[in-house]
């Protein structure tokens, strides 16, 4: 089995446009949550979110003319982050041509305004079919980001689009790691992108009652592990990582941010809307990652939690971390950057993977903000309020998704 390292990162998030801006904001404990500005959300029960602002969509559209038929925000965000990662890696076109591409995405983008003009029709589909003068896409295929990146750079070893909801961003990194480890390629670009900050996305999630409705205090609304937490806040963004075999990175003189040591994924097989209250899936996922890394609980020095701020997730995740790590769980920091970024759905696992790699390389743990009064059921050291020096070698990063999909990665200090 080959060793695999992270040699480049591209990141765009509600807390910053670009890797360095995002990382600086995360370690400063700055919230990216605010009132929704991209559309009039005044009639919705939830009117706050983590928007990427400022973001120059036109610059992306000019570089990718094929993008014209879509308004899908996550495509633009994904292209920005992928390009930043590619630039950070300083890879040649030939190298990218033979690389693997893994893109994680969430919900398909359907613009309500493209449908409402056919609302009076008896059959919505027939009316859309009859509208021969309309040529915009009704739905943007979820592989569109991968397709555009493929056209621009190649990625002939396979362009994979993963739609595993909130676990997608972690799964894409883990699956690319598995393929590189087994020698199927030397290099991969893996990441995820998502934006649910649109009427259908925000409205749909509101119906599920998973979102905080604290519209008057947006920056305090997402409070993972706090006793008063009421729900998560939607965010948008994208993150891509360049993964290489250690051998390949050394040969071309690349300096790794971190090494990926292990990966596990599991299913709750419980319910599509709620986590298994026993946390079996979360436990299996973390144990799988430890097993593949050949590490014991004593080897884990920090946990980047899924930490959504929903009443159910945070307590179940805390119990699962304690079950897997035992006494070690009480000795190490466990932090949740969603307190600052909001829940970027498919993209969350990718930005948290990048943050874990940066924690390992830059020796700083971003805080969990808004944690004032810990829930008695959440009794770990969550790095409340301010960032902290990281003195260890490994970070375990969790993602748990709607539908019961779970994924965990372990990052270690390279070298």
């Amino acid at each position: 089995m080959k060793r695999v390292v992270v040699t480049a990162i591209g990141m765009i998030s509600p807390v910053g446009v670009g890797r360095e801006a995002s990382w600086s904001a995360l370690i400063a404990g700055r919230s990216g949550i605010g009132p929704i500005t991209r559309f009039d959300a005044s009639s919705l029960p939830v009117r706050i979110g983590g928007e990427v602002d400022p973001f120059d969509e036109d610059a992306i559209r000019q570089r990718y003319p094929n993008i014209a038929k879509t308004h899908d925000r996550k495509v633009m965000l994904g292209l920005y982050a992928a390009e930043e990662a590619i630039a950070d890696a300083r890879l040649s076109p030939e190298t990218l041509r033979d690389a693997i591409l893994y893109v994680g995405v969430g919900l398909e983008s359907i613009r309500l305004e493209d449908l409402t003009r056919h609302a009076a029709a008896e059959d919505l589909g027939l009316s859309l079919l009859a509208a021969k003068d309309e040529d915009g896409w009704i739905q943007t295929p979820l592989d569109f980001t991968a397709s555009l990146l493929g056209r621009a750079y190649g990625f002939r070893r396979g362009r994979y689009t993963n739609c595993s909801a909130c676990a997608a961003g972690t799964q894409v990194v883990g699956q690319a790691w598995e393929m590189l480890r087994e020698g199927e390629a030397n290099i991969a670009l893996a990441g995820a992108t998502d934006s649910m900050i649109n009427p259908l996305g925000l409205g749909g999630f509101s119906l599920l009652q998973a979102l905080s409705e604290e519209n008057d205090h947006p920056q305090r609304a997402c409070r993972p592990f706090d006793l008063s937490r009421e729900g998560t806040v939607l965010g948008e963004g994208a993150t891509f990582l360049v993964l290489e075999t250690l051998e390949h990175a050394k040969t071309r003189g690349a300096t790794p941010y971190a090494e990926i040591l292990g990966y596990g994924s599991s299913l709750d097989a419980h319910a599509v809307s709620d986590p298994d209250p026993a946390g079996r899936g979360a436990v299996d996922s973390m144990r799988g990652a430890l097993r593949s890394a050949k590490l014991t609980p004593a080897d884990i020095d920090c946990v980047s939690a899924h930490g959504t701020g929903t009443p159910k997730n945070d307590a179940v995740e805390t119990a699962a971390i304690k079950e897997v790590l035992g006494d070690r769980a009480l000795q190490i920091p466990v932090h949740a950057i969603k307190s600052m970024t909001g829940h970027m759905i498919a993209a969350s696992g990718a930005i948290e993977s990048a943050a874990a790699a940066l924690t390992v390389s830059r020796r700083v743990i971003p805080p969990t903000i808004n944690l004032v009064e810990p829930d008695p059921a959440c009794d770990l050291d969550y790095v409340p309020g301010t960032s902290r020096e990281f003195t260890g070698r490994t970070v375990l990063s969790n993602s748990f998704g709607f539908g019961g999909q779970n994924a965990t990665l372990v990052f270690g200090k390279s070298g």
Partner: protein
Amino acid sequence: MEVAITGIGLVSSLGDNPGDILSRIGRGETAIRPLPDPGGVSPCPGYAPILDFDAADFFPENKTLRMMSRDAQLAVVAARRAMENAKISQGELYRPEEIALYGATGLSGIAPREISRLVRGAAADDGSLDLERFGTVALRRTRPVLSFKILSNMPICYVSIFENIRGPNAIFTPWEGNAAQAIAAGIRAVRSGNVPCALVGGCDVKTHTLSIAGLDRLGVFESWLQSGEGTIPGEGAAFLVLENLDHAAARGAKIYARIRSVASRSIDDDESPEDAIAEIFDEITNRPACESIAPNLIVASADGEPRIARAETNAMKQSAFEQTGKIYPKLFLGNTFAAAAPINVALAAKSLHGRIERGSAIASCFGPGGELSAFLLESP
């Protein structure tokens, strides 16, 4: 570590039994029928629906099933059939966490009737989007379960719940080539020893007007206008049980086929599709220990879309498969997109089952999106 196919489960417009489907294809029977098209607006002349499918027939007591989208229902039924076919009862042979699940779903195929209420509620009198009405009228008329009918991962998550599968997993989307990647991921999981068993497959529903309109805007039916030939939308689901070959043999499992090699790649815009397809055909047949295998059958990916059909035919010529037997399931089942790859692999596997002489078959999988895969199977 070798991988065997030990279970097949299908829901298709030509039936549910892979042997019968092969026979019906052999007799030239088709499930394709004229598309009801009152206004003459359809971009294609036919479709291939599964008639008389009612999920309640399979899980009569289960209310959840009735809350699921049709593609999820098809997936759950096909997955159950595959597990039963492999004689893997829940929790008996393998622990739930020892079974991996890799699946694929298509473009969101929500039915018009499921979203109409939301759309009507959000429309102003002039047909524009009225965000005030969206919040105050449309959302209040909408059942929360709608989100679970739109989320692309849900059909496969429902499979995990119904089959109590808790192992490694991933869900790919949205085309046939991506579904082939899901099958390849399952093969990798078993071959690497990560799990002894994987359930792999896909589902798709492209038979109602909204999903046909979605495909139309993406240009999937363009060739009908240009040449009078093209893709016919269909629907279906297929799942395969993969097991470590030694494990399967030791338990006396029915082994449809051994998976000898898999090749996948993406195609560049400036590349000839036939060269790319020929490259993966060559790759699977030139792998170590596969050089002497001459396939008896190719389950082809092409349908009526002329460019794709020409590319695959030319690739077969380049790879010296001109004399090999071929079947073209999509010409009879329609194009089932995310379900097409597992259907092709299932039919290739079934063609090998029960053979007296040693045989081999190739399942070819590609289509929109530019992802290509081929699987070389050999009789056990």
